[in-house]
């Protein structure tokens, strides 16, 4: 299928999310579209797939001008999309999920399951997939769910398949399988659009690469007429990342200590956690999302209970106490999910800014709020962290993503807590804000705070951390000094299959003996 996007523009309120983007997608190709979060990749795809109909410009499929009003128009024209957040009904079986919306009719709208099964078994054979059609989707692994999503598009005979960040949640083995399948689809004559921000994947698998930045198409070239360096320059743009350097400081006393912590409800069965974070130190936990990092953080914060073990903050045992007591003991938290955990979107900035300090009664006189003090404090934070906001009484929802994150970080760091837990602190934030956030975290380190940085961005981990650990399948590796470990070694640990890891662990223990 030959798909042409011509002069596509989309506005979200006053923000221009897409600015006159024109793009050609040819058959028999894997076409990668790269760019940072917020560059407009997903918006462009939602236009192509009929999910967003408020756009200007034209879509041509095989030279015919198309006007979608719903995704079903796009589906009928042969476009399939695998969304980053899977669009599956967990209580339904694989088969039911695949046929949903394109049900084979037997009579009066009752379904012909046999027909669907036959067609699917053919597909499974053709592309060498193995999945149980009668299993409930809720029981499937992430990789298998993705396979269901892909099968959904194949079942609808899609000639153009869009995959939005398909590898973010996959294990290395699943990732390899996925790219093998994509090659098969390509050879069968389909067009593939691969949305990603991982350049390695692009270099290894794509035939054509388009770079997007701030809603504009920067370049669109065959893979062999561009290079890794060129692509990454184009992604980042002129304002290249200032390299941030860590000053050498000798770490102080232990501030956060986990010993034999066995957290309830981990995604996989792993070992208990042991971890120390010292003053003047940033400890990074790297890993692919979904390997138990979120649960560990929740346990430290107090949102999740533990079976056994100990959490100590500045020498105080906080394993059994509630969140506010932990915060009083010297803990603050920059959550990954700023919309839910970081802010109350329908509350004013001042209400959002003062919440953590209120728990410690800094802004209250008896039961009464000290409104002026809260207002001044909020204005100071806004100024100090350069949060772009109309006033301290504006609603949090009126801020852009980056400014929301800055507000959260400003609030949490202003607590001057000894221990700082930062969970993907720059996720989905623009470059300028990333630099500022990194700078602030490093200066907290120099001022004697102990920082636990949990991030799925390996570059962030390597830039900021003194020591690094890797979380894989709910187990923490031992810690490495950042200077003594390479990207590749960490990557290997993040992506290792469980069996290999066991082998390696045995080797390590042999060496220890």
């Amino acid at each position, binding site marked *: 299928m030959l798909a042409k996007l011509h002069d596509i523009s989309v506005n979200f309120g006053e923000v221009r999310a897409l600015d006159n983007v024109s793009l050609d997608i040819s058959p028999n190709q894997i076409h990668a579209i790269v760019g940072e979060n917020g560059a407009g990749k997903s918006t462009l795809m939602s236009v192509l797939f009929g999910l967003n109909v408020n756009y200007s410009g034209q879509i041509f499929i095989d030279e015919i001008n198309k006007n979608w009003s*719903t*995704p079903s128009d796009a589906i009928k024209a042969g476009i399939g999309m695998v969304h980053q957040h899977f*669009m599956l009904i967990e209580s339904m079986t694989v088969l*039911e999920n695949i046929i*949903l919306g394109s*049900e084979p*009719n037997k009579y009066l709208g009752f379904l012909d399951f046999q027909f669907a099964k036959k067609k699917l078994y053919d597909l499974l054979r053709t592309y060498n997939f193995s999945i149980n059609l009668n299993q409930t989707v809720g029981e499937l692994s992430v990789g298998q769910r993705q396979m269901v999503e892909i099968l959904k598009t194949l079942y609808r005979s899609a000639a153009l398949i869009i995959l939005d960040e398909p590898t973010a949640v996959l294990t290395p083995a699943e990732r390899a399988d996925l790219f093998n399948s994509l090659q098969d689809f390509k050879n069968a004559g389909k067009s593939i659009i691969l949305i990603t921000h991982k350049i390695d994947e692009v270099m290894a698998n794509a035939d054509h690469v388009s770079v997007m930045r701030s809603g504009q198409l920067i370049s669109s070239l065959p893979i062999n007429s561009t290079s890794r360096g060129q692509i990454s320059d184009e992604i980042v743009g002129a304002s290249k990342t200032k390299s941030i350097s860590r000053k050498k400081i000798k770490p102080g006393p232990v501030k956060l200590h986990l010993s034999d912590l066995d957290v309830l409800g981990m995604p996989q069965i792993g070992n208990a956690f042991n971890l120390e974070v010292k003053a003047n130190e940033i400890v990074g936990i790297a890993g692919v999302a979904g390997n138990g990092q979120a649960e560990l953080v929740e346990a430290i914060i107090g*949102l999740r*209970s*533990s079976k056994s073990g100990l959490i100590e903050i500045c020498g105080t045992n906080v394993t059994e106490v509630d969140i506010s007591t932990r915060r009083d003991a010297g803990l603050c938290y920059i959550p990954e999910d700023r919309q839910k955990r970081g802010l109350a979107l329908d509350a004013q900035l001042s209400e959002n800014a003062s919440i953590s300090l209120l728990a410690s009664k800094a802004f209250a006189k008896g039961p009464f709020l000290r409104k002026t003090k809260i207002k001044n404090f909020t204005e100071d934070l806004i100024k100090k962290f350069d949060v772009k906001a109309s006033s301290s009484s504006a609603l949090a929802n009126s801020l852009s993503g980056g400014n929301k994150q800055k507000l959260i970080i400003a609030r949490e760091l202003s607590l001057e807590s000894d221990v700082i837990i930062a969970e993907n602190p720059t996720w989905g934030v623009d470059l300028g804000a990333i630099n500022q956030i990194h700078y602030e975290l490093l200066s907290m380190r120099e001022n004697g705070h102990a920082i636990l940085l949990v991030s799925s961005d390996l570059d962030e981990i390597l830039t900021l951390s003194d020591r690094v650990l890797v979380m894989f399948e709910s187990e923490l590796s031992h810690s490495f000094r950042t200077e003594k470990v390479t990207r590749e070694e960490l990557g290997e640990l993040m992506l290792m299959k469980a069996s290999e890891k066991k082998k390696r662990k045995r080797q390590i223990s042999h060496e220890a003996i």
Partner: protein
Amino acid sequence: MLADLFDPAFADSVARIAVPILLASLGGAICHRAGVFNIALEGFILMGAFAAVLGTFMLGHVFWGVLSAILAGVFMGLLFAEFHLRRPGDAIVVSIALNLIGLGLTTYLLRAVLGVSGVFQDEALGKIIEINIPLIESLPVLGSFLSGQSILFYISIFLVFILHYIYSRHKLGFWMRAAGENPLALKTVGIKPAPVKLLALVLCGICCGLAGAQLSISNVSLFVENMSAGRGWIAVVIVLVTNGRPIPLLGLVLLFGFVDSLSLRLQGFGFPQQFTEMMPYIASLIALIFVSIRRIKDLVGMRGYDNG
């Protein structure tokens, strides 16, 4: 004493008590599964019950009464859809409003149109046809449960199984489940969730209208102010407890019919009326606590902070 309790009249009363609650819960379940939190069942039933009486009285036959009840229920469903689907009203707020409208409008019309307050009774009001099944009717005890019931009894039992079948084998069932569980997923396969939810509300209106008809022109032949008397709320609880699955729902409704009949019987043994009337609500609460505890246990480790 036991023989005094469980005689044919008792079995008959279980069925009569169960039918309106079963129909209303089925309506509620259809909405629940399609992701519409409809807690206006009380108002829906009241409108159905009143329309059944009004239709029968005005047009002279229970058939028209049943039809009016269905139309009244559908009208409520469409109102719900207008304010919850087409305009973005909160389902709980819309429900509260519709419950008030159901109560207010039926009482108002009772006086304004039928000219009485409190109770309307008339010889012209008949009852919905009752069906005697040969052979089965002569079974001991069970015979009076399964035979001699209003046609709505048989229709509602049939609906339970047809609904079960639709959820597992029909595309509308698929769409309704998807609309409830992940509407965005339904949208991405090209089906708009709103019309699916509208359909659920209309079906719910039909079921609740029939529930009202069973109350006013089958179990008795009259209309009393606020006749639904909390049955809509019991139906809401039954839907929550069974998560809207038709077959468990049927089981729970029969259990309620049993408890309710039993407490009516106990009244005859000198228990105060208030305690027997309270029984269904206490039973609902116990059932709800039972499943809530089980659901809480599923959330391993999370320190609960949802207070909805």
